[in-house]
């Protein structure tokens, strides 16, 4: 008995352990229902018709052949569709106004803004009939001149404007003069291609109207935005819109905004009076959902003979759509990584007649670190210095552009641990010196860096008399273990076994959770969960404090420990169940989370004081075929500072996933946009080369595990940091293997022949 008690007391907390995902069994048994898998009686199916010109007006619509297809219910075009309200104007006070993927009011206009824009929707009894009929809708256009060629438009880019969340540039000292005077310098121009979102689950919506009540099953990263945006577009109160999104088959930013498919499913349901399901074709995802901007970047570095930077210049050009999209923080890592006395950063933009760009895993940083970290590597070659040593010599004490304090900075430790695990000292620094048969072997490093974000969130916690804890918040579970992490935190803070915790999420009827973006969901929800749990303990204790027969009578809450399903001081105490039962309560509930204004004020204060970020050191080994230039990544080590690690299993998976996505960015992914027509030419998974298993080596990930003192529970976020630096680590390893510096992604073999 005593031994058992002691064991329980010493039980390790759940946070920091490898815990299986709570949603795992439902997913592997097929019980989990995704947005396109909800059956409804009388369900109809919709398919999109995409424009085939980049810009112009629809002058004629012929739907006769489509309507003649057996099973077709309706063909909606701008000539007959009920109008939605236009997309709202951007307002900093209402973040859901950022939710519009584009500003186009689909089917309420004859205007075409990009090649692939949805211009008609077919609703039919079966998906097959809808798709076939969609192929028969004939549209005639009057074309107008369109600008679709990024390379041609790029010289005309204009400076991006600053906004409170994102700086468009920075200046310190005189970087141009310092560069000109530097004894050692590199000045390089990089390009990166557009990337398209390719989550395994294509965007899908099931929409059901009941009078003015709307239910939407949707895979989304922002339930609150979907609800508010649909309410606004369809002119019903938000409380009448219910959004259900318990399972999301991958998102990576592609399901943050609201895109045409969602709107048109809801519109089609409204117009036909039927529940409607709309699943984008894979091609439809390329045509209607934004992706990562292409970029051109210049990075110029000046250094003294010891490798101390004297100048750092990083400028970029990105593109948005003319009808949507936004800047990406391409030069952001250059604000934080190196102690240069003279810095010039500037982001520029062009607008093109293409589908709007949108956030994609580490928007900006993923491609920005490619340029910056490639240039640092090249500088190391110029100096004849080890690239890790060069970075250590330029490791800043404070944030380089403005002298703010770092909340947490452990890049030295990350590099030290990574170098050891990788075997960096085995590297022969001479290019081409390491070989394995026909393969040239190269090793490269690069720094990973991603800002830590916190978003407003509300979380409710309910304690029932049977000892069950229910955590309630409209969190987004895209497969990364979001709900499992909150269950671990709740179990620890309330002192209950994880089996007693249930997490309710993915439903707009729950307290509004944070959006799943900026790698901030877990930290944001944790802050509210901890506050709600604290409130809850206070209410429970209030029930026991005056109860004559409670062992807690007369004690103080701050002396009590939550454990074993109750509150205890030493061996005195009792279970929550006992307290609730005595008080005749079947449950107690508490909710916490900041208001919007308070949150914004705190965030701005915080950002004035601190620079917060996750970071890491990426180590890559490549093999380059001496004859054909084929590049294979053969080994990877990533060591990250992500603050507290809640679930070692899911964190490792997330970090690895980011690296895998980065391998695609480095070696193979590129959305080809025809410069004559603005059409995506490789809109399929056969021709758009995301990495396959054979491209992915063993990936060794580790973390430093030191909590960030300024973030909830010490969390810095793990979703995005690990894709940053990957492109450069690969390019730097290729440089080592072959002596060739590749400036243009992806590093395909033709660039190495």
């Amino acid at each position, binding site marked *: 008995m005593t031994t058992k008690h002691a064991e329980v007391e010493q039980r390790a907390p759940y946070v920091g352990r490898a815990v299986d995902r709570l949603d795992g069994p439902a997913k592997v048994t097929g019980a989990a229902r995704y947005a396109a898998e909800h059956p409804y009686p009388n369900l109809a199916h919709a398919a999109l018709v995409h424009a085939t010109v980049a810009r112009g007006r629809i002058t004629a619509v012929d739907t006769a052949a489509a309507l003649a297809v057996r099973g077709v219910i309706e063909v909606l075009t701008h000539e007959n569709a009920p109008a939605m309200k236009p997309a709202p104007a951007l307002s900093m006070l209402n973040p859901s106004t950022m939710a519009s993927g584009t500003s186009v009011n689909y089917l309420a206009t004859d205007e075409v803004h990009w090649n692939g824009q949805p211009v008609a929707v077919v609703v039919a009894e079966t998906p097959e009939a809808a798709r076939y009929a969609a192929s028969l809708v004939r549209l005639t256009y009057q074309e107008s001149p369109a600008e679709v060629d990024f390379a041609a438009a790029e010289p005309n880019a204009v400076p991006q404007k600053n906004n409170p969340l994102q700086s468009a540039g920075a200046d310190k000292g005189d970087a141009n003069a310092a560069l000109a005077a530097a004894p050692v310098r590199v000045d390089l121009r990089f390009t990166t291609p557009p990337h398209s979102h390719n989550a395994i689950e294509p965007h899908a919506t099931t929409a059901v109207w009941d009078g003015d009540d709307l239910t939407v099953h949707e895979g989304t990263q922002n339930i609150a935005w979907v609800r508010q945006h649909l309410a606004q577009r369809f002119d019903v109160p938000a409380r009448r819109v219910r959004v259900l999104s318990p399972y999301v088959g991958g998102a990576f930013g592609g399901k943050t905004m609201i895109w045409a498919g969602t709107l048109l499913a809801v519109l089609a349901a409204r117009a036909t009076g039927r529940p409607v399901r709309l699943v984008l074709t894979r091609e439809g995802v390329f045509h209607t959902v934004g992706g990562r901007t292409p970029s051109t970047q210049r990075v110029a570095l000046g250094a003294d003979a010891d490798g101390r930077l004297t100048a750092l210049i990083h400028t970029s050009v990105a593109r948005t759509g003319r009808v949507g999209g936004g800047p990406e923080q391409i030069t952001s890592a250059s604000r934080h990584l190196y102690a240069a006395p003279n810095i010039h950063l500037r982001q520029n933009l062009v607008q093109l007649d293409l589908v709007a760009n949108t956030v994609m895993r580490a928007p900006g940083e993923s491609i920005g670190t490619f340029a910056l970290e490639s240039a640092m590597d090249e500088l190391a070659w110029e100096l004849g210095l080890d690239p890790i040593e060069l970075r250590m010599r330029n490791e800043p004490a404070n944030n380089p552009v403005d002298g703010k304090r770092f909340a947490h900075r452990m890049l030295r430790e990350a590099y030290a641990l990574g170098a050891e695990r990788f075997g960096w000292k085995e590297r022969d620094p001479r290019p081409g010196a390491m070989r394995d048969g026909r393969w040239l072997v190269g090793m490269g490093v690069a720094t990973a860096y991603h800002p830590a974000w916190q978003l407003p969130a509300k979380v409710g916690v309910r304690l029932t008399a049977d000892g069950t804890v229910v955590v309630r918040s409209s969190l987004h579970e895209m497969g990364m273990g979001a709900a499992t992490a909150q269950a671990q935190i709740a179990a620890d803070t309330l002192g209950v076994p994880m089996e007693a915790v249930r997490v309710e999420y993915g439903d707009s009827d729950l307290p509004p959770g944070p959006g799943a973006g900026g790698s901030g969901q877990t930290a944001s929800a944790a802050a509210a969960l901890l506050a709600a749990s604290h409130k809850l303990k206070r209410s429970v204790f209030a029930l026991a404090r005056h109860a004559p027969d409670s062992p807690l009578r007369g004690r103080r809450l701050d002396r009590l420990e939550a454990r074993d399903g109750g509150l205890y001081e030493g061996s005195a105490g009792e279970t929550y169940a006992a307290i609730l039962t005595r008080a005749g309560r079947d449950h107690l509930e508490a909710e916490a989370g900041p208001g919007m204004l308070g949150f914004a004020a705190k965030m701005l204060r915080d950002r004035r004081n601190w620079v917060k970020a996750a970071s890491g050191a990426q180590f890559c080994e490549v093999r380059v075929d001496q004859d054909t230039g084929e590049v*294979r990544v053969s080994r990877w080590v990533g060591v990250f500072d992500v603050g507290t690690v809640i679930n070692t299993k899911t964190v490792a998976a997330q970090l690895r996933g980011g690296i895998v996505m980065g391998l695609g960015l480095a070696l*193979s992914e590129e959305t080809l946009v*025809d410069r004559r027509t603005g059409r995506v030419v490789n809109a399929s998974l056969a021709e758009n080369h995301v990495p396959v298993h*054979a*491209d992915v080596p063993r990936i060794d990930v580790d973390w430093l595990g030191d909590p960030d003192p300024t973030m909830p529970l010490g969390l810095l976020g793990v979703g995005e940091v690990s894709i940053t630096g990957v492109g450069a680590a690969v390019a730097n390893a290729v440089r080592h293997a072959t002596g060739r510096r590749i400036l243009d992604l992806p590093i395909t073999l033709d660039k190495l022949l």
Partner: protein
Amino acid sequence: MRPFDYVKPADVAAAVRAVATAPGAKFIGGGTNLVDLMREGIETPDTVVDLGGLPLDGVEELPDGGLRIGALVRNSALAADQRVRGRYPMLSQAILSGASAQLRNMATVGGNLLQRTRCPYFYDQAAACNKRAPGSGCDALDGFNRGHAVLGVSEQCIATHPSDMCVALAALDAVVEVESVRGTRRIPVADLHRLPGATPDVEFELAADQLITAVELPPVPVAANSRYRKVRDRASYAFALVSVAAALEVRDGAVTAARLALGGVAAKPWRAREAERLLVGGPASEESFGRAADAELAAATVRPGNAFKVALARATIVATLRDLTHGGSTA
């Protein structure tokens, strides 16, 4: 997808008849290419004649030591056949380098031979393509053509034939047997696919009503030392930028027999006869391999996007022959 009639004939004679009497009919093997094209509205058959169930799925020994492969043998089964692996390793390797395990389990020999190009403009109804819509033009000429052909091209079309299997078959002098209401015909694989010329829509030396029943492999002793090398944009599940099927016999430093075919460079599997001619009798040296490759590639016509293919093809030919000279290192 456009609605169609579905027929499942009981035997080869019925299959051939079914197509002869229905002009808009198409055979279907594994369906991995035809169904995709039907979904895209590029193939629009009125009738689909399902070959599944016809007794054309065996691999038999021929009296001369060759093999007769039924047209319905699945790609995976053929690649796994011990006789193929032993006598014609390049063929097994070629098949295994194609598509994915799932696709190879469905795909048939007949379907693989007649699969159509992966040119993205061919696949996109919104683009101009002389192969899909004769006379509409070719968007690939001045568009994205990194994957396109450099040999045997025309001003009408620069698409490639994407098959890996066919490259090995061409190198091995395989012969296709076809059946129609008019009788039986034999066509060398190397002559089965047509170069585009002015009619890129006519892709095969085959009438629409001709059923492929088998592929015959003659004995090719040199093929015991052969390999297939595929170069592509990712390690698996991508079409060839360039591929090489090669067999080599070397005695006392001299090449005594050679087979060479290229994939990813033309509208057909490209049998490199000029290179073979130069190789045989010459030294088994990199210089000699390079000269043979150069001679074969001299006629290349390139575009900015695919100019690298000439150098890549040369390098891949030389590397593959070098490997075969040294007893073949692994891929």
